[in-house]
């Protein structure tokens, strides 16, 4: 009887000591929109449209922010991609966590386009350790058409799951 009491006692002490709370957040909080570049090619003779992945020779991406005080749009100083020549075929972009519009200035092979993404944002409370996570749902995308021909929304939900949300198609011959 006495032995069993001591065994249970020691176990309870070990458990009590080992049950310290872990305050580190292990959950992923990486939320970014993924956009892939594609090149459509329509064959007149076979009348078949083929779409191939496109690698951008030179890419610069910069955010454009709306200033509520001056009521003007201005470029954000820091660049998301600065003349990147690593032949990217897809990129991750952060959406604005505090507005329903995120505007980007793309310089694709020296041709400039502006892409505006309208989205809804949701504040998701995770836990005391992790805090809040902001996810988005893409409503519409508007673009200029200098290098970019069109933008297709593939998956509207932007969250911690890495999926291709947008497809950016280019022209056969860019309009300058």
């Amino acid at each position: 009887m006495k032995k069993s009491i001591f065994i249970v006692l020691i176990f309870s002490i070990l458990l009590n000591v080992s049950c310290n709370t872990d305050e580190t957040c292990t959950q992923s909080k990486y939320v970014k929109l993924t956009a892939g570049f594609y090149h459509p090619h329509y064959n007149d003779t076979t009348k078949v449209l083929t779409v191939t992945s496109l690698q951008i020779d030179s890419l610069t991406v910069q955010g454009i922010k709306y200033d509520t005080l001056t009521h003007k749009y201005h470029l954000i100083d820091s660049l998301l991609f600065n003349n990147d020549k690593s032949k990217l075929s897809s990129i991750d972009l952060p959406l604005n966590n505090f507005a329903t519009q995120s505007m980007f200035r793309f310089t694709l092979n020296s041709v400039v386009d502006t892409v505006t993404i309208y989205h809804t944002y949701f504040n998701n409370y995770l836990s005391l350790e992790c805090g809040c996570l902001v996810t988005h749902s893409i409503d519409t995308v508007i673009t200029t058409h200098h290098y970019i021909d069109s933008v297709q929304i593939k998956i509207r939900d932007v969250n911690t799951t890495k999926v291709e949300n947008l497809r950016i198609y280019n022209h056969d011959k860019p309009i300058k």
Partner: protein
Amino acid sequence: MRRIFVYIISLFLCLAVSSTDAQKKKQIIVPPDSTRLFNGFTVQLDVASLASSALTNSSTYSTEGALQIDLKHRIFPTLELGVAGANKTTADNINYKTNGMFERIGVDFNLRKRKKDAKPTNNLFIAGLRLGMSNFNYNVTNVVIPENYWGAGDPINYMNQSSTKIWYEIVAGVQVEVFKNFYMGWTIRDKNLISSDVTGKVAPWFIPGFGLNNGTSWGFNYTLGYHFWPQKKNAKNNKVFIDQKKINKQIINK
């Protein structure tokens, strides 16, 4: 600090358990009547939670008491009531605050079998079950939305959130009569939540009476209790009656 507290408690327990035999010799043990249904009740106070809250820099506190009824000295229906709370601030300055009451209802069973020739004892080796419930309000404040390329925003406050949690506990422990009617004991508890968090709702960090909201939790109670036994005065007469029986038997044998 937490470890020091645990060592103090364990030392205290060891002394209490080892000194039981010595106390047995000194005290007059009135044997429990296992034929009687109602053998009184014990009022208990959990000092482990009290001392833990006072000694450690823990961001949580808890105070609880219990009422334990003795039925046939085998079955012990138990009601536990308490108050607990938390005021926790994380490294990111997110604050969680709650205060709430909790109640547990359950039953303990005395697993100690008394040998025929053994001395009568009020000491118990118990195992049992509890069903716990707490309805409480809580605030989660200063939740900062992670800053990204577009800048930072104002923190969010989730005020007056309410929740009701139900859980069950598997309990094991000992209870020793250290002085006449004065009991000391401890229990360890394996706690398991029955009700889960609603998706999309701000989940509580701490549940009064249960602990951290992790689905399962361990608990340790160290109780001091006083046994009220209105019929105890008559027990001496019972003892005399048993002795008289023995004498009668001896006379018949002769």
